[in-house]
């Protein structure tokens, strides 16, 4: 007779001293782990619920301006520095880690329309309603020294926007026309016009650094090459665009925020129809900024909310609002991809987390692992109705909630009417026009 019985030595399974960690022998045999899918689903459900529980995006409010905040500028080399310009011509420099204002200067008379930090991070430019472009030092003046700009250029007309070249000492302004300036000269090196209109924003492409995009008040977005004497092309839409922003990772995509409550992402090479239409706002979109990863962007709207959109998604993944925040005029996504800064009408700058449920600070390895795991679970089960419902639910202010519903009804009615017209007319006479095609009038080259 040969016999062997299971006889485990407890020493192999129990820790030796209290200072050791517990031994956990594993056996991955699937038959020892029944209900794999349902347990995983339960975990995913819990993770989704916890995400909603921990979603507290609002971090801080920076107050100190005496008028609405009209423009924001990120520091190019320093994460903790933020510049803001207000409607009374005041510029403030903020320290974000301490959440305090470190410097205040009266830059212009009237609005500060645009502001940008030079690529080296030692000085910044402002434009204002007083028809001047001023260059300032980032550093505060020493004790007893006068607060004076390094350089002042007097323009002929009011400037409405400003952007600086990524590498060279060249910047662009817009107003009656788009001007490209050399820092060393007091007159523009190039001036672009295309019809008589005024421009509201101008942006340099961060990758193809010679390219420019601007929004004109004749409902068009115009593209320029700095090296050429004439503009490249423009697309005319049904409504006016307020600002434009290039995707920092995919240089040929740019997104514009429009007066018709939508945002449009265009491929620069095919302006005939936008790549994506981003809908969700219930009022004009005033500003947007891409995340440094180029995967998402944030938009600020007249409807007193901030929304975060995936770059190729038609609807927002997140909406931020507070009771006190009024029309959001300017918005920036911080360079470390973690924070969002918004400046609004009621004189405050607000600091938000880009990922509402994210834990800030250093994570322990186990914490990080758990976070990654739950992230993956959420991703895996995101289409299950129960999980989707919880993940998508956002509390909205009453007005916005009702406006959204109202607009949905209006849209449905319009669609129904169109469908009926199509039904009762000769086939082919009323073609289906997709949402993307609807908003583009023409492309001019």
């Amino acid at each position, binding site marked *: *007779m*040969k*016999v*062997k*019985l*299971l*006889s*485990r030595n*407890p020493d*192999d*399974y*129990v820790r030796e001293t209290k200072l050791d960690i*517990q*031994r*956990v*022998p*594993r*056996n*991955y*045999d*699937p*038959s*020892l*782990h*029944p*209900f*794999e*899918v*349902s*347990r*995983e*689903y*339960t*975990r995913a459900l*819990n993770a989704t619920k916890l995400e909603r529980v921990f979603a507290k995006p609002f971090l801080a409010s920076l107050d100190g301006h005496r008028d609405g905040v009209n423009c924001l500028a990120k520091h190019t080399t320093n994460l903790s520095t933020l510049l803001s310009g207000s409607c009374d011509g005041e510029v403030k420099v903020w320290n974000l880690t301490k959440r305090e204002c470190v410097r205040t200067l009266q830059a212009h008379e009237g609005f500060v329309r645009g502001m940008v930090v030079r690529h080296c991070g030692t000085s910044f430019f402002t434009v204002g309603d007083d028809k001047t472009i001023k260059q300032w030092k980032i550093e505060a003046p020493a004790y007893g020294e006068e607060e004076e700009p390094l350089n002042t250029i007097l323009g002929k007309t009011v400037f409405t926007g400003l952007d600086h070249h990524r590498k060279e000492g060249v910047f662009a302004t817009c107003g009656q026309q788009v001007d490209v300036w050399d820092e060393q000269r007091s007159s523009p090196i190039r001036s672009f016009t295309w019809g008589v209109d005024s421009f509201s924003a101008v942006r340099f492409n961060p990758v193809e650094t010679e390219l420019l995009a601007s929004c004109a008040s004749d409902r068009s977005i115009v593209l320029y090459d700095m090296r050429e004497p004439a503009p490249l092309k423009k697309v005319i839409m049904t409504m006016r665009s307020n600002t434009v922003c290039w995707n920092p990772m995919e240089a040929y995509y740019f997104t514009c925020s429009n007066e018709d409550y939508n945002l449009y992402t265009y491929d620069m090479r095919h302006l005939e129809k936008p790549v994506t239409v981003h809908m969700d706002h219930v009022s004009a979109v005033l500003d947007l900024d891409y995340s440094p990863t180029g995967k998402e962007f944030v938009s600020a709207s007249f409807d007193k909310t901030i929304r975060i959109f995936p770059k190729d998604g038609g609807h927002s993944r997140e909406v931020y609002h507070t009771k006190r925040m009024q029309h959001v005029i300017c918005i920036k996504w911080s360079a470390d991809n973690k924070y969002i800064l918004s400046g609004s009408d009621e004189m405050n700058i607000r600091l938000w987390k880009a990922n509402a449920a994210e834990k800030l600070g250093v994570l322990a390895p186990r914490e990080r692992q758990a976070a990654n795991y739950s992230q993956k679970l959420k991703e895996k089960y995101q289409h*299950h109705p129960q999980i989707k419902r919880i993940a998508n639910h956002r509390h909205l202010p009453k007005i916005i909630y009702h406006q959204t519903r109202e607009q949905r009804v209006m849209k*449905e009615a319009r*669609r129904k009417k*169109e*469908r009926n017209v*199509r039904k009762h007319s000769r086939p082919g006479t009323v073609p*289906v026009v997709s949402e993307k095609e609807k908003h583009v009038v023409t492309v001019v080259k």
Partner: protein
Amino acid sequence: MAATSEAVVNPAHVEKTKKPPARYWDELQDGKDENKVGKDGEQTGETLPQKHVEKAKKRKNDEDRGDAKKFISGKPDPFPGPAHISKDRMQKFKRRDKTKKIPRQHYKLKDMMARSDEVSELAQKQAARIDLLLPEDAGFLEGDEDEDTCTISQEDISDAVDITSASKYFDLKLSQFGPYRLDYSRTGRHLLLGGRRGHIACIDWQTKRLMCEINVMESINDVKWLHSEAMYAVAQKKWLYIYDSNGIELHCIRKFNDVLRMQFLPYHFLLATVSATSFLQYLDVSVGKEVAAINTKTGRLDVMCQNPQNAIVHLGHSNGTVTLWSPNQKEALVKMLCHQGAVRSVAVDKTGTYMVTSGMDKKLKVYDIRAFKPLKSYFLPAGASCLSLSQRGLLSAATGDIVQVYRDVWSTPVTKPYMAHRVQRTVWGMHFCPFEDVLGVGHGEGFTSMLIPGAGEPNFDGLDSNPYRSAKQRQEWEVKALLEKIHPELITLDPTELGQVDQATSQQKHQDRVQALGFDPLAKEKFIPRYKKKGRSSAGSIERRKRQVANEDLRETVQQSSEDKMKIEKERKEREKKEVLLSSKKSALDRFKK
């Protein structure tokens, strides 16, 4: 030829041995060495050493191609590439088939699918690799030549094995409170005994430490551990009671009356009970709520078991049927007629594949419950009153006071039991201890713990049920388990259903969307040929040519099918003709035709 070459090569070889052992910096000197060999060769022959060098080079190339990793010492890896994993081991950890390639998939989706396939294959491989590191092997019992294992007595086994294992064979003489039912906790450390006449005892049976002992002064129908060894449920004469491990009554649940049998679903935290009033009830023990009460309308219910893979409860009835139940449906999911007489006992194996039933018709039957097919049928002269399946698939059947253990009842026709043992009185309850080679038998004279080599799963999973866990670990596990408690709505026949694509709903959704929009947003755009002046093969003409070919193909198939139809028609007519001819010949039996 070979001899000559050897003779020539040998001296060179001798020369080589004088060299110091190979070092990684030798590669730098390779050229020099070759020169040296060449020089040696000049002494012996002119051409052959060149060949030798070439040969060496060729081998090196081969190795490079073979992906062999070279060590720093210059020695080639004798086992290049990843270690081989046997097929059946890979099969064991297989969770799904590779996703089928759908023609004209979106490139992003295709990429995602490919990546997920890759990841799951990697996981499967890694799990299969780790299988090698499992510390314990299963037990076994082999007789000598001409010795049946069923003739080996428990005493012989306990003499032959080590002291700790031998101490697992014991008898508890409890004749006073008569026949006992029992339950092992999920880790296999704790034993719960419930005597018919009200005696309850909790024992840490390996150390033989008595945790509590009470008498409820009422008849007891069944006992069951709840999720941990801190609590257990007792089905008493009238109500269901819950006690803690010190014997303190925690709850008396009056909603559950006349309970005869209980099953605990550990991942759902559900206690399923069946009663003499033919009710199947589910109690959520984490919140204390009744989840479902189902009137089965089948009379007294005292045969019950659960499928550990999908948490479906199997009930045996007096008319020979076995019914499958989930808490979500008022009707039985499945009704199977298994026996001619009443069903006496039901058991389902760990993998949820096989069900073993025994009935009053003295038969023991094995079913595949995924396909609901009978696999084997055995005749036991005395009929089995109690069945229990071990983790490794041993079946124990009690016939009167004899406990028989069978091996491989579903794969091979069994003629002899694997082991047999006679206890003092009629067997009342029987359970294999998880993760141990032990079978606990409750009978009229008390309790017997038997040694059954090869019954228990040798390697437990520390995060799931750890027999050696400390109090702290148990608490942690309890919190995790409660967080992962599966909703009772998710109990279905196929537990993987939740992870599959719900195509019906998505199609319905798409249809609704098409209806709302008035057009199909996913419809493929009609091809519009590009206006092209140069070149003969314009996109339009290519398209035209394609269409022409397609039309020709279509024409051919239509022709073919019409010809086939004609042929079939012809044959049919001929057959009819023949039949008519045949029928014209009348036979004597034709008058009975209708």
